[in-house]
């Protein structure tokens, strides 16, 4: 059962090959057997899962089931879940139980999906390796001595090891796409505003976006159908019709114009990764697409721009963790200042503190214009790159990450860690959608192909990804031992 995609599980449930209870039990058992090695879950919601599965089986038998009813799913521990701990990978929220569901969680629950548990992640989604989690690093099922990527590393590893058939992720600077690439998954970061951010704990509000992490593009389309849509609880969500993502998966891509930005293929890219990306592009040519070299000249600005804007927003977003109303509070505070200093000093990890410091500095009077305001201008310049490019091509392709998964502890210097986001960050600054799909292996380690689209062109990206997955089988590979 556990090797099936969501599309296959839907058929299996409908054909009564297995019940949701059997299916859920299968995944829970797998989590018990394998997660000691991977550390992909922070919380396993066994009891609630079995309860939900029972409910789902009832709906399946009485005809009130929806398409996804009874299918298990793992939620990144950044989405608030009513009555279940939501830690955001932080000691600060180790004791936090939200009294509400995130809109995404509410939608999946309503669809009858069964939540298996909450997945590990970089603390407050700040990291590219899942090493900043309070709950310890997640290990990459393809090589347990390597990182799964981050910040949605727990979700990626769980699906890669088939401890869950799919999971949710969030992407602020690549946090869905990069771990998807490093773990051989399909990961979609939707257009900013397409998926509600309500109840999704904020890292950098103008960049954060939730999305699906799945085995196939077909599965991603199924989950997107539930996640996407206007939410009146999120002022930045967009009131725009949601297309039928599954309906266009098989559309022909003949004549589609693919842009290859030369900046994404320069010396920073490992040659073997480049080779695999070129091979994937050739597949697309065979499918009838045309290839165009383009330029995104301001790509180099995206990392410095991002590392001003994201910390600035996070420095403010994380002010609410003060030990007063919820979350971690230090022992025996002597006075208010002591309460603040020690609660935050003890509750946050090093990377979170680093970003709060950077962001506070960037917003300070006297530095605001030089950093935050300048970064906002550069953000527009980076976005303009894409606007110009999409006047000439339909989609843009390149690598998701400059290299395959690196070793645990290999990037101890924050700057080298930040630079590993080079190909994913510009997409968040512009707010456009992008998908990462499996494109081959180097020494047994997966490589991801990134496809970027214009605003609200998720259907096109899913269509492109699906057509590729019809002619390749990288995405079907499962790590040995799982």
């Amino acid at each position: 059962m556990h090797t099936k995609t969501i599309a296959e599980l839907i058929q299996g449930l409908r054909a009564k090959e297995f019940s949701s209870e059997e299916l859920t039990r299968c995944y829970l058992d797998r989590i018990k057997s394998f997660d000691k090695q991977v550390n992909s879950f922070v919380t396993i919601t066994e009891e609630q899962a079995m309860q939900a599965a029972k409910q789902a089986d009832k709906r399946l038998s009485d005809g009130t089931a929806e398409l996804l009813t009874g299918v298990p799913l793992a939620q990144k521990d950044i989405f608030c879940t009513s009555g279940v701990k939501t830690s955001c990978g932080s000691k600060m929220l180790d004791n936090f139980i939200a009294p509400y569901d995130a809109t995404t969680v509410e939608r999946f629950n309503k669809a009858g999906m069964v939540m298996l548990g909450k997945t590990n992640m970089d603390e407050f989604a700040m990291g590219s390796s899942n090493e900043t989690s309070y709950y310890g690093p997640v290990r990459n099922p393809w090589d347990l001595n390597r990182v799964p990527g981050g910040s949605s590393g727990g979700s990626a590893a769980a699906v890669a090891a088939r401890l869950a058939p799919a999971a949710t992720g969030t992407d602020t600077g690549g946090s869905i796409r990069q771990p998807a690439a490093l773990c051989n998954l399909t990961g979609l970061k939707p257009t900013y505003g397409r998926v509600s951010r309500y109840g999704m704990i904020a890292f950098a509000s103008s960049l954060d976006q939730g999305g699906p992490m799945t085995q196939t593009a077909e599965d991603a389309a199924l989950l997107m159908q539930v996640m996407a849509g206007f939410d009146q609880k999120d002022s930045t969500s967009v009131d725009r019709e949601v297309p039928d993502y599954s309906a266009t998966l098989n559309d022909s891509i003949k004549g589609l114009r693919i842009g290859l930005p030369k900046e994404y293929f320069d010396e920073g890219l490992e040659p073997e990764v480049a080779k695999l990306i070129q091979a994937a592009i050739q597949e697309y040519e065979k499918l009838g697409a045309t290839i165009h070299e383009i330029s995104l000249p301001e790509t180099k600005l995206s990392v410095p721009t991002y590392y001003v804007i994201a910390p600035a927003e996070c420095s403010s977003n994380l002010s609410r963790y003060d030990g007063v109303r919820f979350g971690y509070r230090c022992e025996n505070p002597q006075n208010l200042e002591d309460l603040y200093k020690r609660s935050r000093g003890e509750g946050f990890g090093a990377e979170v503190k680093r970003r709060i410091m950077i962001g506070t500095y960037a917003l300070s009077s006297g530095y605001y214009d030089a950093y935050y305001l300048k970064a906002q201008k550069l953000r527009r310049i980076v976005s303009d790159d894409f606007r110009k490019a999409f006047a000439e091509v339909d989609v843009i392709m390149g690598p998701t990450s400059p290299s395959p998964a690196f070793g645990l502890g290999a990037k101890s210097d924050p700057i080298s860690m930040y630079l590993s986001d080079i190909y994913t960050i510009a997409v968040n600054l512009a707010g456009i959608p992008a998908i990462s799909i499996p494109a081959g292996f180097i020494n047994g380690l997966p490589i991801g192909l990134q496809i970027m689209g214009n605003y609200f062109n998720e259907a096109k990206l899913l269509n492109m990804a699906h057509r590729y997955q019809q002619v390749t089988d990288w995405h079907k590979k499962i790590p040995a031992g799982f």
Partner: protein
Amino acid sequence: MEWEAVIGLEVHAQLSTQAKIFSGAATAYGAAPNTQACAIDLGMPGVLPVLNQEVVVMAIKFGLGVNAQINKHSVFDRKNYFYPDLPKGYQISQFKQPVVGEGYIDIQLDNGEIKRIGITRAHLEEDAGKSLHEDFSGMSGIDLNRAGTPLLEIVSEPHLRSATEAVAYLKTLHALVRYLGICDGNMQEGSFRCDANVSVRPKNQKELGTRAEIKNVNSFRFVEKAINYEIERQIEILENGGKIVQETRLYDSVRNETRSMRGKEEAHDYRYFPDPDLLPLVFDEALIESIRASLPELPEQKRQRFQAQYGLSAYDAIVLIANQDTAAYFEQVVNQGVSAKLATNWIMGDLAAALNKDGLEINQSPISAEQLAELLKRIEDNTISGKIAKTVFEAMWQGKGSADEVIAAQGLKQVTDTSAIEKVIEEVMAANPEQLADYRSGKDKLFGFFVGQVMKLSKGKANPQQVNDLLKTKLHG
């Protein structure tokens, strides 16, 4: 040296919406602590603000009321600072691009002169919660009911030159927000509160002196006292060769003084930046125009009309229009055919005093406008004297019936029958032969004595004019 005070005011008007500015929680005053704070007001992880559109309409109303530029594109910013009653660690406010831009309001000074006071801006923001330092030994309690309550912060230009002018400005603003129906103006509950920026400079000097900001003064009287205290304090320092420190000061109404709260060096760096959770506030001219069309008659227009239409003095007009209900009450009385002057005197005099004594608003008055008009008409048609009218008013206040009913029941009808009054005069003359002899021998001053005796004997019911006329004839014999 002669000194001049320069004052600018920041008023926080609580907008009278049912729900908070960024959440659906209720805003009612006086609920048990933390019963009107939802997850959004508590700043819980992952929650997001959604703007209550009603506050936008209210802000536009205010902007139109002060002849201001309405900014069709404005931005919500985060003002970052740590305090236990500020749940998110930032307050959502408007910094660089407020919804209401420059405008002005005309105030009337004591000498009748009209002075134009510039309004720099008005912006929307959320209130913080409340810290309770009593009743928790060694700890503080936090009540977040008020967190997220919508406020309009109205900033004036430093155009005010005295505490009296500042109060006149505040009262004008207070009347305006209540006319517009955007704020209940309740100063005790903190719905209308003010910070004052005060500085002094030698008269005729152009540059402004260093200012001190006086925080949260919650009555007109305290504003006046606090500003006067502060002006004197600053002058004294300067005259002794000292320097004013730019700082925030707190007014202590018990000791009538201002005290330093924090200096400039401790001033916060609020790290304002646009709130990424909220889109810029954008609306079109059509919305402004539809709101303009819905505006009621505003205080300034009403004042002018009252003076022109009813021949009222500027002072009377200002007092009457300060409260919309009072103005309406006045017009209802006058519409019954009562003279404006008589109506004004009674509304501002006996009625105001009685309302004040019983702690009632005018729309809760036990005597309706129609009922008061009936009473006043009885004065005008000489049924009763002004003095007897006070007795009748008192009885009406206690629910003993209408004016006519009280007059009939208590036999208070004025005596205008000449022969009846003559009879009383004759009785008085007979009872006071000595005084009569003295008067007739030239002691004119005793006339008043006879008037008093006649009125006393008639229980105040004799028509005073007739008593005068008849006495003169009779006393002369």
